[in-house]
């Protein structure tokens, strides 16, 4: 299931999303050569110990972790959700919303540190995406996400199902060696703190939305001319 989103926008080109995507891709490529875990990769128990906590948390938002599948899934969801949330919030509102959601994930991780395994690491982009999921769910209530279901089906899938699907990618770390060795603590990677980012997104989405967007939604114009399926 590959989310494609759509280009139906109300207020303009989502340049901030594309800027974040470019930065994310650069970091993704950079990380393949030189992992950032040493400085910015966040262990919840070590929050604020090596460098200043705020710096560490903001730096952590760019770190995407090892492997290539989960980071790419995160980047795809950043693209799909970001363009729509940016349309609703404006570029700067979207930027601060993403930042807050990412930080929120880190804060919750810090609070849950005693209950998480010591090996657990947090990669901040997942927090941003979780927050965007929350904002999307509240701002585009009832709207699905256009999705390519292999081989060739284009369907609208409810956003909440997408969230569950994405959470599956985040929580299950496909380390085949660990599966063979039956080390399930390495397979089920603890990303639960980012549920906090989801709730923060649900709360902060309406706070950062544009006035015009809320007004149009209040008038009930939102779905009047938008095709429901497969547009």
């Amino acid at each position, binding site marked *: 299931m590959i989310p494609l989103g759509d280009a*139906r*926008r109300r207020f303009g080109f989502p340049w901030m999303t594309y800027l974040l995507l470019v930065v994310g891709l650069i970091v993704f490529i950079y990380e393949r050569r030189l992992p950032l875990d040493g400085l910015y990769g966040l262990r919840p128990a070590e929050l604020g110990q090596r460098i200043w906590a705020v710096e560490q948390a903001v730096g952590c938002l760019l770190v995407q972790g090892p492997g290539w599948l989960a980071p790419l899934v995160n980047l795809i969801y950043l693209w799909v959700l970001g363009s729509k949330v940016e349309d609703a919030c404006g570029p700067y509102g979207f930027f601060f919303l993403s930042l*807050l959601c990412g930080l929120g994930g880190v804060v919750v991780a810090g609070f849950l540190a005693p209950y998480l395994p010591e090996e657990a690491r947090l990669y901040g982009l997942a927090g941003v995406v979780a927050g965007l999921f929350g904002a999307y769910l509240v701002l585009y209530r009832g709207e699905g996400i256009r999705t390519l279901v292999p081989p060739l089906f284009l369907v609208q899938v409810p956003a909440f199902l997408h969230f569950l699907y994405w959470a599956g990618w985040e929580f299950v770390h496909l380390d085949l060696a660990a599966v063979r060795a039956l080390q399930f603590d390495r397979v089920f990677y603890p990303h639960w703190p980012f549920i906090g980012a989801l709730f923060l997104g649900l709360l902060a989405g309406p706070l950062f939305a544009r006035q015009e967007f809320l007004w149009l939604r209040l008038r009930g114009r939102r779905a009047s001319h938008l*095709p429901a399926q497969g547009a």
Partner: protein
Amino acid sequence: MERSRIRLLMREAIQAAQSGNKNWARECLGRVLRADPRNEEAWLWLSAILDTVAEKRYCLERVLAINPANAQAQAGLRYLEGQKEAGRPQAKRTICPLCGEPNDPNAFQCANCGQDLFVLCPACGERVDIDRTSCAACGLEIGDSSDGAAYFFHLGELYLKHGQPKRALDTWDKTLLLNPDYPRVAEVAAEAFMASGQRDLALQSLERAIEEAGDEEHRRALRLRMANYQRELGNMEEAGRLYRELLREDRALGERRADLFIELGRFHEKRGEREAARNYYEMALALEENLPEIRYALAEILLEQGYEVRAINEFRHLARTGGELAERAAARIRALRPPVPEAFRNRWQETVRGAGRFFLAGLLLLLLNRGREWAVATAYSPAYTLNILGLLATLAGGYLLTAATSAPRHLPGFALLTVRPEGRLAERLEARRKRQERKRPVWAMQFQVRLRRSAQTIAEGLGVARLRFARSLERAAAALSCTWRRIGASRPIQSLRMLGRRLGRLLGQARFFRSVAFFFRRLFPRRTGPSLLGQIAQLWPKGSRRLTGRVELSETDLYRWGAALIGLILVVLGTVMVLS
């Protein structure tokens, strides 16, 4: 009509004529003659009540045509001839355009062939003598009847243009009578048949026109019209086949034509295939910008598909062009983008939203900075109080900032300031305003005006430069496309072309380069609002009235900006306290 009824009508007409009621007499006689055109008595009475010599003569001639021995008619004609020779010099003869027979200038019909010697004006319906070149009533240019076939052809076109297809067809019959090989008759006749609802005849006529067309370009245009007719008649399969043929031929020639894309867009729109219709409309507009109807249709499709921003851009483009469509486009923009009402802007939820952002950010920073230990610690610490105060300061600052900038109704004391002052305070404010006005030197005003003009000029220049640059990029993309085709068509790399053809089909060459062109267009979209420089120019006052308004509002503005500044200071201070 029964004989008895005709007799009754005749009696009625004679009584009316004898009593001087010519109109009613003419009506009754008209009914009699429609029922019995060979009624001698009716023609005679009609000649008696008609006014002009030409009409009288016509009626008497009809009597003689029915009964050459009618003495009254002969006498009447002799009387008319005598009057004409005695009263006026000999008038110029009217030449019949069909047979060339010189006729009496007052005659209605050609004495030789029976052709009417007048036509009805296509625009106003008045009678126009055949020897006149324009209508006396409305001034419509009809043409010179001495041109023969060309005259009737042009007249038919005028009839068609003014929505009288059947009369147009009758007129073109005369064209063919004069010149059976007259060009384009079948083509225009097809249009007239189509307009009059005779669809089969329209198609047959257009097929004949296609066969007769000598020029390849003309034949293509007629084939396109045939496809359009088939589309309008609902024969979508046939129409689609014809359109595909034309498209294939154009591609083979390496040409892209806006007219075909327009019709293809309409074809797909009629079939309900919005995506394809949008695609063709966009291609047509890329080739030719000045197509307001197509742009409007494209905007509607975009709107239906949910691309609201793009649709509004198209509507805005239309709204700048002027005309009826521009007004419709402006109305659509107003409907799509209604201004947010003042009541909504000033509702308390907006203030809560604004203050909530700052509070949330402060709280997160606090928790992040202090960590878990701080939140769960029970022992009192001075830093705890400082942090809490910082958080409250952030909240208060956020409230003031939001209320001052976006929801002023919730700014404390704001309503008092916006009320117009009265009494001595008002006089003092007025006097101060006048003092300030006097102090403002003329050179400063002139400087402002010049600065504003310069900013506008620069903004316009930049806009033109941007458009030219975008156009150049488009041309470069188009040139690249042509080069690609030429390289592909040259002999030395024919083999490579054969190998790459399959891949090229997969990618779609034209689509690829079109995509490149559209990509550049998207990078440089048409400006829909004022540019940055334009906005700066708008900030400058345009006249003394605006200046007066600013002075009157300065108290309120000062209060708002002051509140915003205090809010900002509180936010910064609170953040520092939270992070300390």
